[in-house]
């Protein structure tokens, strides 16, 4: 009984219920929503956001925020795409190393600025958001990397599938999620991120190396953005200096906060974020069926962020109230 209660009260259950209700409502209105083909479309919308969302989750748990993800995605995808174009003899698997490496380096810069100069992450990453986007134009000479230059093996990852017609990149996204789960809950550093976000004042007193943990969190966020970058090249088959990753950070933040990661730090789970990403994918797939133009997407992301903030606040207040009851 108690176990059932605690499952029902969990945040993840709430999001799962929202997904089911949303799917039911849309299916009743438009039966073609719940078909195998459309489910595949929904799943294909999720992997990029899911991978980046894992990084953003860790950053938010540590009480920071990373606004530069879309630009990190764009810059690492661009450099990788140019490598494919200008050095066709390089094995395509090396693209992953390059993209992740560049992403990690860009993330490290964010982290270094935040920790060394004690600056608020939001302003730093607002600066690097524009800085990295500008660099993308500079390195690419404002030219797109076209379809024929992306290795066909890489593109095939988004189309061919090992099982059930589900493409490889979705499995990769789930693998990243599993790894993040293991890292966040079963390693010392992972738990230190949560400790740091719950109480930044107490964390150094408990012997947590705050600078290193913060640097690591931003580096991971950058590396995962880089991974999302090469997967963008795989999924869409081109890299464009202005489109690739533009506005991506807002999708990611929306998915992460609706997935129950608290903006006050210290709270968040991989399962919740995965469900949040899935919910956003369902919404995005339902829009055209419901006859809502794609232009409405931005407004929906914004509304989702605000709604998630309200839920987060009411959950926190309930927590405070129940603590008071226990003490009384």
């Amino acid at each position, binding site marked *: 009984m108690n176990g059932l209660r605690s499952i029902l009260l969990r945040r993840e259950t709430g999001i799962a219920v929202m997904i089911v209700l949303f799917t039911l409502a849309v299916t009743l209105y438009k039966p073609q929503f719940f078909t195998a083909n459309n489910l595949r479309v929904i799943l294909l919308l999720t992997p990029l956001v899911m991978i980046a969302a894992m990084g953003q989750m860790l950053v938010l748990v540590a009480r920071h*925020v990373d*606004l530069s993800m879309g630009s990190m995605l764009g810059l690492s995808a661009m450099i990788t795409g140019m490598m494919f174009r200008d050095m066709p003899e390089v094995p395509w698997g090396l693209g992953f190393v390059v993209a992740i490496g560049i992403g990690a380096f860009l993330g490290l810069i964010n982290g270094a*600025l935040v920790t060394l*100069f*004690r*600056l*608020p992450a*939001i*302003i*730093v990453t*607002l*600066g*690097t*958001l*524009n*800085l*990295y*986007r*500008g*660099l*993308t*134009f*500079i390195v690419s000479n*404002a030219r797109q990397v076209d379809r024929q230059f992306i290795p066909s093996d890489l593109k095939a990852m988004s189309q061919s599938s090992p099982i059930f017609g589900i493409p490889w990149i979705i499995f990769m996204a789930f693998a990243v999620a599993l790894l993040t789960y293991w890292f966040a809950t079963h390693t010392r550093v992972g738990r230190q991120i949560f400790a740091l976000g719950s109480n930044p004042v107490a964390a150094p007193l408990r012997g947590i190396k705050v600078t290193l943990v913060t640097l690591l969190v931003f580096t991971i966020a950058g590396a995962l953005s880089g991974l999302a970058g090469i997967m963008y090249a795989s999924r869409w088959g081109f890299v464009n*200096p202005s489109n690739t990753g533009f506005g991506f950070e*807002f999708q990611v*933040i*929306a998915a992460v*906060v609706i997935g129950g990661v608290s*903006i*006050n730090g210290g709270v968040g789970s991989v399962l919740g974020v995965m469900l949040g990403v899935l919910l956003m994918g369902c919404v995005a797939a339902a829009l055209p069926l419901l006859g809502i*133009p794609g*232009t*409405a*997407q*931005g*407004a*929906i*992301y*914004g*509304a989702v*962020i*605000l709604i998630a*903030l*309200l839920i987060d*606040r009411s959950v926190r207040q309930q927590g405070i109230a129940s603590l008071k009851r226990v003490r009384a």
Partner: protein
Amino acid sequence: MSATDTTTTAEVGREAAPPRPLWHVILVRPETMTLVLLVLGVIVASQLSPYFLDVSYILRSFTLSAEFAIVALVLTMVIIAGEIDLSPAANMALSACLFAWAQASGVPIPIAVAIGLGAGLLMGALNAFMVIALQLPSIIVTIGTLTLYRGLAQVIAGDKSIRVPEWFIGIDRVLVFGLPVPVVIFIVTAIVLGFVLAGTIFGRQIYQIGTNEIAARHAGIRSRQIKLVLFLLIGAVAATAGMMTASRLGSVRYDLGLGGELQMVLMAMLGGTYIFGGRGTILGTFLAAWLLVVVSTGMTVANLLPAIQLTVLGVLLIVAIIATNFIYSRTQR
């Protein structure tokens, strides 16, 4: 014994420290840094192009970012009060779209203007509600509303651009005393806000809230009302700026003022506003706005790609906060 001696002498020493000489006080102010950079910028730019010594050329360039500069003046006050607003650029787009859409569907112009301004106030009120009544952090709230407002503008305008009536176009080409109207509005706003911030009780209370909100409340300052006024003010000013942009461009699209939040925050930071609140001046932002215009016009004259300009602005923002924080940490001792 000796330990207590040193502490007492240290305390005495601190009490007896002579007041800093005036030149010292002036020299370590961040506004001085902005002014020096501004002078340097003009000298460098005039080496690049002789046009730079032509005042009307700079004035005409200034009209391109005057709208952002006007909002940045109010944003300075918001940041001094310890909050931040990243949504005014999206606010500009949404209120301009609403205004253009209303007048295109046959509403008389005065009412269309009222709709635009009302929408701006409403957007400011929504930010204020989330930040003040629900006590959510303003940075995250305004990221959410920035996405929402820009998205709503896209819903209203779609991918098309809405034209505004012929006589409404060209506010930047009308001259008052030889100055383009947006520049006049900017200067007047700066003088008024500068007076409010430095010379009125309301202004001083903004500093107190930003320095220590809890202490300010205990001292009887109505911090919530003051923040509400600031959020409403920035909403209304952003709406006005949005319509000025519509008048300058002659048509409205949902991406009006895209990325403007960077320029606004950059102007405030370059002007020496302290990102954690409690410090900053209107004069600093006023100078920083001119500095930014000189820098970006200089880059345009030097034929740099817009993308490179974006990179430079990003770097400038980071350098500006680091420098400001450094100056304040030195003067605090």
